[in-house]
């Protein structure tokens, strides 16, 4: 026991971490770029907070989706479940027995119910997750239209109060043109995002369950042989994803105050894109929950930038596709630079790993 080699910083970054790092760096660079190009909007704290305030549901959904994706699955029902929850909450709140606590229960109940159903079918009956969650999407959409077809504006006073409730950060703000100090405001949704982020990220990093999810995503057969209850682990990931979709639904209606057929429609694709940009791979086993908000924000900032730049609305989708392209290629190039054995490109020294079992490509030829 001569040399205890624990804390030598010689391990290279894991895939999860490097992907997260790429995402974070790109986000920061892009945000700085945005500040420089459009100082009067992006310089304001409020703009930054509004990214959260307005998109809390998407970030929350992405969190749950990331967990499923790390476990090697996919959940495309989340957008529709979120939409269903908004409508169910709206209907409930407008009914005679409506109460906020009840609405929260409705939201969580629907989310968890979808999670349990889908999780059971995928984990215990071993059905392909894409198909089951696609059916889940159909089911949620169908239930939504069955429940109510027309938009409902929730008018219940207590709820309206909740909707309009802002947390004012008095010490953080910007002065407007007249020099009046305007403090920043954050919505409850943002708080929920932060709380969930902390809880779920810790869960994935420090809990036995979280590590099991990584193991299952990495190689489910090996995970089983290592003594992990693979089925239960997968099941729980879907329940969590259903739960977050439910929470997202409640936050959604808390933000917009209305139930609508089109609520959160197509959000699953945005969430998948966010998760991927945040460094979670679809193959499973690789990802970082902190990347979820970063991925979402990156997408949003891209959109904001395009809008701020005054790109004609017809071109906006094209430009965001183009930026996505650069992002994805960049991510791939950085990853391949690191992966010498397969790509055979010598590593920059700062990424090189010492240690005998590591082979570093010889430059000469």
């Amino acid at each position: 026991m001569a040399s205890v080699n624990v804390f030598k910083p010689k391990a290279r970054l894991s895939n999860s971490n490097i992907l997260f790092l790429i995402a974070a760096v790109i986000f920061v660079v892009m945000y700085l770029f945005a500040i420089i190009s459009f100082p009067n909007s992006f310089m304001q704290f409020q703009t930054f907070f509004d990214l959260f305030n307005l998109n809390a549901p998407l970030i929350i959904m992405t969190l749950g989706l990331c967990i499923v994706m790390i476990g090697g699955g996919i959940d495309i029902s989340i957008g529709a479940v979120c939409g269903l929850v908004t409508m169910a909450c709206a209907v409930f709140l407008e009914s005679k027995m409506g109460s906020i606590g009840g609405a929260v229960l409705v939201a969580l109940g629907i989310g968890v119910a979808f999670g349990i159903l889908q999780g059971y079918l995928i984990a215990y009956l071993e059905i392909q997750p894409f198909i089951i969650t696609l059916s889940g999407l159909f089911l949620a959409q169908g239930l939504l239209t069955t429940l109510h077809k027309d938009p409902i504006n929730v008018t219940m006073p207590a709820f309206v109060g909740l909707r309009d409730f802002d947390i004012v950060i008095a010490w953080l703000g910007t002065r407007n043109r007249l020099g009046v100090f305007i403090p920043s405001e954050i919505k409850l949704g943002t708080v929920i995002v932060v709380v969930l982020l902390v809880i779920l990220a810790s869960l994935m990093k420090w809990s036995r369950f979280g590590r099991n999810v990584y193991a299952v995503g990495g190689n489910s057969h090996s995970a089983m042989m290592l003594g992990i209850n693979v089925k239960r682990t997968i099941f729980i990931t879907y329940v969590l994803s259903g739960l977050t979709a439910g929470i997202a639904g409640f936050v959604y209606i808390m933000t917009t105050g209305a139930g609508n057929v089109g609520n959160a429609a197509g959000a699953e694709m945005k969430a998948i894109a966010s998760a991927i940009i945040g460094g979670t791979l679809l193959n499973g086993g690789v990802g970082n929950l902190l990347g979820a908000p970063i991925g979402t924000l990156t997408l949003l900032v891209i959109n904001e930038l395009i809008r701020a730049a005054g790109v004609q609305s017809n071109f906006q989708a094209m430009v965001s596709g183009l930026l996505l392209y650069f992002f994805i290629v960049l991510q791939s190039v950085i990853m391949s630079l690191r992966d010498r054995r397969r790509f055979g490109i010598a590593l920059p020294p700062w990424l090189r790993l010492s240690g005998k079992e590591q082979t570093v490509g010889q430059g000469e030829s």
Partner: protein
Amino acid sequence: MPKLIKHFSHLVLPVSVMTLLIIINLIKGADYFRITMVNGAFYGNIPNILFGASELVILSIGMTLVTAASRGQDISIGVSATITSAVFVQYVLQAGEVTLLTIVVGFLLSCVIGLLLGAFNGTLVSVFKVQPMVASLILFTGGRSIAFMIDGKLSPILANDISNQIGTVIPGVPIQTPIILTVVFIALVAVLFKTTNLRLYVETVGINPNAARLNGINPKKIIFLTFLIMGICTAVAGFIAVNKAGRHDSVNLLKLIMMDAILAVAIGGNSLIGGKFSITGAIIGAYTIEMLNRTLLRLEIEPATIKVFKAVFIIILMVLSSPVVRVFMKKALDRFRSWRLSISQPKENALSTTNIAEKKEE
């Protein structure tokens, strides 16, 4: 005979679903199979399904190949088809007088565009090692607005006889043209498989790309090739779709068809994580989905709840075909058999005949 059954075991699911749907339809009305002749062409429930599923069938074929080789799905197919068909429409409109040649050249041009779009996705997946769903997310995001540009921010109308005939029927031919085109396409694909090693290469690459490379197969090329084939599929599907519609709507053309295409691949007994595949299964899967959609309409289910039924149906279907349930049912069946045997021949040791399937197969 048992060998034959084993050989087609992956088709059990889609075929039995189809049978079930037919039974449901027959219960609803015995005239399900009735085919009527209108203006010299066949119409009826079955022709309608064949007609309606054309694009889906063609796209499912491409999706099966992409899935098998690259272990992921292309979600940009509907968007790509919109772009290729936009180019086709513009060419035809610009040509002034429309002859068969115009249409053919326009179609070939759209195929070239399809190949380019396929090459775009294929390069990302094979060279840059981007996961297919991510790679195709780019076109999925920006593609429709490209199509919109090509259309000149309108939705142009294809008002010529030939297009009309391609979208419906050619006088004197009793079968609707999209059905014929689909059959021809399937036949071409069959020829492709007969005359090349596409299946072996694609499956090898999908299962173990490292081993494929060491045995002289270039996984990048094969993955790229499947995306090119997908490109052709999108061009053909776009061509059929726009001629059917008679008008190019860049926002809604083949919208969300990728979901159905992926579903068709899965119902056809294919794994969505690559490897071995069955094109036949996917084709039957595609027709099944169309049949399901039309069955729900025929049952006059309220439009608002139709998706619930669709979901429940797919879930029941997947549950019945899930490996776990199959093993369970096989065991139950065996037990039942041995129980019956033990009743008929009480002296014999019933257990000896059981041949219980293994619990897990990995």
